[in-house]
C-alpha cells in the first residue's frame, strides 16, 4: 500500500461495453455491466469500507467489511462480489451495516497489536483507517485471549519485512502473488484460527518468492512493509517517473521524504506495467546514492597515471581540445562516440548530434549494436520500420504465444506476468529455446511445445515452420494477396517450399523432432490470434537479422499482423534500446530510421543544425575497435556503457581501447571501460535525469528528476558543452527543448512534447498528424513500407562450431535479479540472490568431466578463459552450457568471440564453442578478475585479426 495513495475503486473494471444504471445512496450512476456494487459506489463518489478488496485484484469477499443493503434483496451482501443490476438501489450507510462493520473490525482489532504510534505504517494503514471509518471505539472481547501477537517476524528478504502478528489474513498478498505476479509463492496455511500467510515451508528468502513487491503493495496493514519505510518513515511526496532497467519501461512513483527516496511504487496509470513491478525496479535503486558514484570529473594523461580531479570546465575543455587535436593529426574520421540505451532520448540525441555536427562524421553507434540491431535490419526490410508491432496489452488477446530466444520471466518480468496471466486463462504456448526456461513449465502454465533446438539453428527451425504452414495449406492467402508484395511472395514461396526446409530434412541439424515442429507450426497457424515474442536469443547470432526476417515472414504468411493479439514483438534488453535506435544513434541512419544517404532527410537536419552532414555511413562499434587496432581511430567518447565488460572477446576490446589516444567515459561508476579511460565524466542516475525513455512497445514515457543532478550537470549539458567547445554551438535551455528538436526533425515523433506527455501520460510512436494519439498497434491497414515484403532466408550455419578441443556450446544471457553488466544491481542487495555468475551445465556433461555442483571450473574458448562455479542443471540440454555476464570477476565475455551477425555485426553471444574442465590448470590469481588478468597481460595467446596498414 502507499502513503500517497492512488484512487482504489475496490474491484477491477468490467469490460463493458453495455452499461447499467443504478443508484448508490441516492446518487445515480451508470457503469459497465458486470461492475461490482463496490466499484459502482466508488464511481459515484461513495467509498464503501473495505479491507480484502483492491482494484488490482479480483473480488474475494472475505473481510465482510463492505456489506451493503440493496432494496428488494434480503440480507447484507458484500458489495465487492455483488454485480450491479439495472435499477438497483444501494444503501452503503445504514444502522444495520454500520453495526455489522463495527463487529467485524472489533474482531480484527482484538487480535492486532495496539502499537499504532510506533508502527512503520502509522498513518498509512488501511486497517487503521477502517477502524476510524466504522467508528470502532472499544473491543469488548479484551486482548488477553488466544492471539497471534507473538508470531515471529520474517526478516529474511533484504527489501521487506513480514510481521505475521499484524496480519488479518485478507489474502491480498496471496492473491497478488497469484493473479498479478503469477508465481504462487504464498499460501494461506492452516485452517480457522490457525490460518496464516506463509511462503511455503520456508522463509521468504528461501521460497519461490521473486520479490516483485506485489504482496507488499497489496497489504492493507503493516504486515508486509518495505524495510526502507521501517528505516526512514513514511514518504511525504511523490514524483512519477520511469524505471531505468529493462525494456518494459515500468512507470513508478518515486515516494520521497525531502529529496530522499523512501520507496519506488509501481504506478497503476503506467501503460506498460499497470501497477506491477519486479525486484529490480521496485527495490534495486540504491545504487543511485552508492558511495562508488563518481562525483567529480577526472583526467589523466596515461592509463597508468593516478586520476586528477578537475572542474567541469577543465574536463570539458580537455576533451574538446584533445578530440580536435586528434582530428587535426589523424583526420576527421579518427574519433567517434557510443551512446547508451540507459540514457534518455534527449541524452542520446545530443550525442549523435555532437558526432554529426561537432565531430563532422557519422562515427556514432549505440549499445543496441550488441543486442537488437538485427531487429532494426530485419523489421525494416520486411515491414518498413524498426519497431515491435504491438503494445504489451495486446498479449491479453493472443490465442497462441510463440516465445523464441527470450526468457521473459527473468529479463522482462513485468511483461512475463502479463503473459502468464493470459496463458493461465487458456492461451497456448510454444517455446523455442535450447534451455528449458521457466515459462516451459511454471505454476498453472505449461508449454504445448518446447522446441529445444541446438544453438545457432533458429533460422532452420523458423524456415521449417513456414514450410509446414505453406505446404499444408495453412497460410492466410487473403492477407498475403492483399497486404504483401506479390513478386516477393512468389519468390519466397518457391524458396520455402523446397523439401530442404521441411522439418524432416532439418531435424538432424536442429535437434527438433519433426513431428513436434509440425505440431507447433500448425498451432501457430491456427491462432486465430498468434503472437511472436522474441529476444536476444534470436538477434545475437550470426544470422540474427535473418531470423528476424523469418519471424516477419511467418507473421505475414498467417495474417498475424495489424490487430490486437498478434504481431512480431522484440523484447528489448535495456530500458531505452528502442529510443536510442529511434534517435539516429546508428552510423548509417538519422532519427526515425532514415538512411544517411537520403539527401532530403539530411537537408532537413542541415537546415536545422546549420552544419553539413556526411552522406556515407560511419563506423559501428566493432568497426571502431578494428580501426583503433589498425591505428586510424584514436578518440572515443563512451556514454554510460561498459563496453569492456559487455562486448564480446574482451581481449580484443581491451586491446582496441588500449590503443586509443583519448578514451572519454561518462558514467555513474568507474567501470571496467573507465579503467582504460583518460577522462571520466560523472553521469546522472535515472532519479536525476529529466527526459524520456521509449520502451519496447514504442511507448514514450517521461523520466522526471526526483532530485537535482548530484554532480551538478545533466549529461546532455556536458555533451552540448563539449560540442560547443569544439566549435559547434549547441545549447538548450532544458531537456524539453531537445524533445522539441527531435519532434521537429523526426516525423514519427512530430506530435510528442513534454507538455503533451505530462498531460496524457505516455505516447506510442508514430505520433503525428496521422496518428495524433499515438499508435498502439502498427501496420493496421498497410505496412510502413506499403506492402509487406517476404524475404528469402537461407540457413547459413555459423562458423563457430564445437570441436574436439571445444566440444560444448556456450550461450549467455541474464538472470532476474541482475541487470546487464551489473554496474547498478551489483551495488544493491540483489547480490543476495546472485552474488556471482555461475555456469549451468547438464548433469551428463558435468559427470563426463568429474564436475560436481558448486565446483570451480575452467571455461575456455579459442579466445580466452575464465573460471566459474558450476551449477548442474536439468534444464540444460546435453552439449550446451550457459552463463550470465553480470559480474566482471568472471568476465564471461573473455570467452565470447568476434563472430557476429552478417548484416549488422551484432555479436554472436549465443554460440561459442568452449571446453569446461574441473580445476583450471592456471587459476586466476585470488582477488583478481578475468579482466584484471587480461589487462596485466593475457596468459592465453589471443589472436587479433587485424593487419597493419
Amino acid at each position, binding site marked *: 500500500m502507499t502513503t500517497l495513495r492512488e484512487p482504489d475503486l475496490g474491484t477491477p473494471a468490467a469490460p463493458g461495453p453495455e452499461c447499467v444504471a443504478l443508484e448508490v445512496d441516492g446518487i445515480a450512476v451508470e457503469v459497465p455491466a458486470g461492475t461490482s456494487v463496490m466499484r459502482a459506489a466508488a464511481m459515484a463518489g461513495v467509498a464503501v469500507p473495505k479491507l480484502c478488496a483492491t482494484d488490482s485484484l479480483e473480488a474475494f469477499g472475505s473481510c465482510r467489511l463492505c456489506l451493503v443493503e440493496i432494496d428488494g434483496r434480503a440480507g447484507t451482501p458484500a458489495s465487492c462480489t455483488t454485480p450491479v443490476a439495472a435499477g438497483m438501489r444501494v444503501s452503503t450507510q445504514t444502522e444495520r451495516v454500520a453495526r455489522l462493520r463495527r463487529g467485524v473490525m472489533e474482531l480484527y482489532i482484538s487480535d492486532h497489536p495496539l502499537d499504532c504510534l510506533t508502527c512503520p505504517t502509522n498513518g498509512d494503514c488501511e486497517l487503521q483507517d477502517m477502524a476510524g471509518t466504522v467508528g470502532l471505539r472499544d473491543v469488548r472481547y479484551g486482548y488477553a485471549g488466544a492471539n497471534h501477537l507473538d508470531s515471529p517476524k520474517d526478516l529474511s528478504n533484504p527489501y521487506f519485512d513480514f510481521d505475521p502478528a499484524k496480519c488479518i489474513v485478507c489474502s491480498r498478498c496471496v492473491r497478488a502473488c497469484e493473479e498479478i505476479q503469477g508465481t504462487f509463492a504464498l499460501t494461506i496455511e492452516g485452517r480457522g484460527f490457525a490460518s496464516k500467510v506463509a511462503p511455503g515451508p520456508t522463509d521468504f528468502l528461501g521460497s519461490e518468492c521473486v520479490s516483485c513487491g506485489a504482496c507488499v503493495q497489496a497489504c492493507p496493514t503493516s504486515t508486509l512493509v518495505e524495510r526502507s519505510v521501517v528505516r526512514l518513515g513514511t514518504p511525504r511526496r511523490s514524483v512519477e517517473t520511469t524505471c531505468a532497467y529493462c525494456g518494459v519501461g515500468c512507470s513508478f512513483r518515486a515516494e520521497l521524504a525531502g529529496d530522499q527516496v523512501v520507496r519506488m511504487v509501481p504506478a497503476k496509470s503506467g501503460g506498460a506495467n499497470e501497477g506491477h513491478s519486479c525486484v529490480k525496479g521496485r527495490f534495486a535503486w540504491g545504487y543511485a546514492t552508492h558511495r562508488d558514484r563518481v562525483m567529480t570529473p577526472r583526467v589523466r594523461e596515461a592509463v597508468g597515471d593516478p586520476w586528477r580531479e578537475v572542474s567541469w570546465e577543465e574536463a570539458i575543455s580537455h576533451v574538446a581540445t584533445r578530440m580536435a587535436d586528434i582530428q587535426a593529426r589523424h583526420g576527421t574520421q579518427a574519433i567517434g562516440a557510443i551512446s547508451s540505451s540507459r540514457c534518455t532520448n534527449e541524452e542520446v540525441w545530443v550525442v549523435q548530434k555532437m558526432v554529426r555536427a561537432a565531430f563532422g562524421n557519422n562515427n556514432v553507434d549505440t549499445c543496441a549494436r550488441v543486442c537488437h540491431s538485427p531487429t532494426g535490419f530485419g523489421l525494416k526490410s520486411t515491414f518498413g520500420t524498426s519497431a515491435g508491432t504491438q503494445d504489451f496489452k495486446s498479449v491479453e488477446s493472443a490465442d497462441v504465444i510463440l516465445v523464441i530466444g527470450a526468457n521473459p520471466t527473468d529479463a522482462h518480468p513485468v511483461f512475463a506476468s502479463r503473459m502468464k496471466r493470459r496463458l493461465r486463462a487458456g492461451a497456448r504456448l510454444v517455446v523455442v529455446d535450447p534451455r528449458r526456461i521457466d515459462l516451459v513449465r511454471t505454476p498453472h502454465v505449461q508449454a504445448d511445445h518446447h522446441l529445444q533446438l541446438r544453438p545457432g539453428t533458429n533460422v532452420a527451425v523458423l524456415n521449417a515452420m513456414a514450410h509446414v504452414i505453406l505446404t499444408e495449406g495453412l497460410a492466410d492467402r487473403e492477407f498475403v494477396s492483399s497486404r504483401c508484395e506479390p513478386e516477393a511472395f512468389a519468390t519466397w514461396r518457391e524458396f520455402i517450399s523446397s523439401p530442404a526446409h521441411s522439418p524432416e530434412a532439418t531435424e538432424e541439424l536442429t535437434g527438433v523432432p519433426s513431428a513436434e515442429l509440425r505440431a507447433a507450426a500448425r498451432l501457430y497457424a491456427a491462432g486465430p490470434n498468434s503472437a511472436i515474442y522474441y529476444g536476444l536469443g534470436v538477434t545475437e547470432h550470426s*544470422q540474427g537479422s535473418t531470423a528476424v526476417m523469418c519471424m516477419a515472414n511467418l507473421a505475414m504468411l498467417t495474417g498475424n499482423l495489424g490487430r490486437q493479439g498478434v504481431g512480431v514483438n522484440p523484447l528489448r534488453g535495456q530500458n531505452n534500446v528502442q529510443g536510442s535506435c529511434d534517435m539516429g544513434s546508428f552510423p*548509417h541512419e538519422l532519427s526515425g530510421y532514415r538512411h544517411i544517404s537520403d539527401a532530403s532527410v539530411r537537408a532537413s537536419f542541415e537546415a536545422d543544425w546549420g552544419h553539413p552532414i556526411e552522406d556515407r555511413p560511419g563506423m559501428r562499434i566493432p568497426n571502431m575497435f*578494428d580501426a583503433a587496432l589498425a591505428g586510424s581511430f584514436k578518440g572515443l567518447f563512451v556514454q554510460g556503457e561498459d563496453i569492456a565488460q559487455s562486448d564480446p572477446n574482451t581481449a580484443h576490446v581491451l586491446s582496441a581501447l588500449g590503443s586509443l589516444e583519448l578514451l572519454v567515459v561518462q558514467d555513474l561508476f568507474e567501470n571496467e571501460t573507465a579503467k582504460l579511460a583518460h577522462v571520466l565524466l560523472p553521469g546522472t542516475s535515472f532519479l536525476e535525469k529529466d527526459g524520456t525513455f521509449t520502451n519496447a512497445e514504442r511507448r514514450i514515457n517521461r523520466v522526471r528528476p526526483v532530485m537535482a543532478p548530484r554532480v551538478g550537470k545533466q549529461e546532455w549539458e556536458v555533451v552540448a558543452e563539449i560540442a560547443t567547445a569544439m566549435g559547434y554551438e549547441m545549447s538548450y535551455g532544458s531537456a524539453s527543448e531537445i524533445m522539441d528538436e527531435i519532434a521537429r526533425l523526426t516525423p514519427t515523433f512530430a506530435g510528442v512534447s513534454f507538455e503533451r506527455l505530462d498531460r496524457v501520460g505516455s505516447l506510442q510512436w508514430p505520433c503525428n498528424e496521422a496518428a495524433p494519439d499515438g499508435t498502439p498497434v502498427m501496420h493496421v491497414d498497410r505496412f510502413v513500407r506499403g506492402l509487406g515484403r517476404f524475404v*528469402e532466408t537461407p540457413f547459413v550455419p555459423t562458423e563457430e562450431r564445437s570441436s574436439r578441443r571445444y566440444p560444448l556450446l556456450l550461450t549467455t544471457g541474464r538472470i532476474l535479479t541482475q541487470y546487464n553488466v551489473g554496474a547498478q544491481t551489483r551495488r544493491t542487495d540483489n547480490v543476495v540472490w546472485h552474488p556471482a555468475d555461475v555456469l549451468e551445465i547438464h548433469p551428463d556433461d558435468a559427470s563426463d568431466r568429474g564436475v560436481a555442483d558448486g565446483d570451480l571450473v575452467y571455461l575456455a574458448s579459442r579466445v580466452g578463459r575464465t573460471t566459474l562455479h558450476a551449477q548442474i542443471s536439468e534444464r540444460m540440454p546435453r552439449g550446451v552450457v550457459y552463463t550470465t555476464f553480470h559480474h566482471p570477476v568472471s568476465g564471461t565475455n573473455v570467452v565470447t568471440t568476434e563472430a*557476429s551477425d*552478417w548484416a549488422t555485426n551484432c555479436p554472436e553471444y549465443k554460440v561459442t564453442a568452449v571446453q569446461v574442465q574441473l580445476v583450471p590448470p592456471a587459476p586466476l590469481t585470488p582477488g583478481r578478475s578475468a579482466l584484471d588478468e587480461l589487462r596485466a597481460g593475457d596468459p592465453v595467446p589471443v589472436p587479433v*585479426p587485424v593487419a597493419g596498414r
Partner: protein
Amino acid sequence: MTEPTVIPEVRMANQIAANFRHHPDAQAADEIAAHLRSFWTPWMLERLGAVVAAGGEGLDPLVVAAVDLLRSPAA
C-alpha cells in the same frame, strides 16, 4: 603465436556473400554491393578494395564482383 593477417572486412564480406549466395551470381553481387554501400564506412570499403586490388586472396568471388560494382561509375 603468429597473428592472422586476414583483416576483419574479409571475414565480414564473405559472411555477407554467404547470405546472398542463394541468388544467381549477378543478382547476389548487386545485393552484396548494395549492402556494403548502405552499411559500411568508406574506410572499410577501402580496406576491402585493397584486398581485391591485391588479388582478392581469401575473398568469396561474389564479394570481388560486388567490389567491382562499387567501383563502377554507376555505383
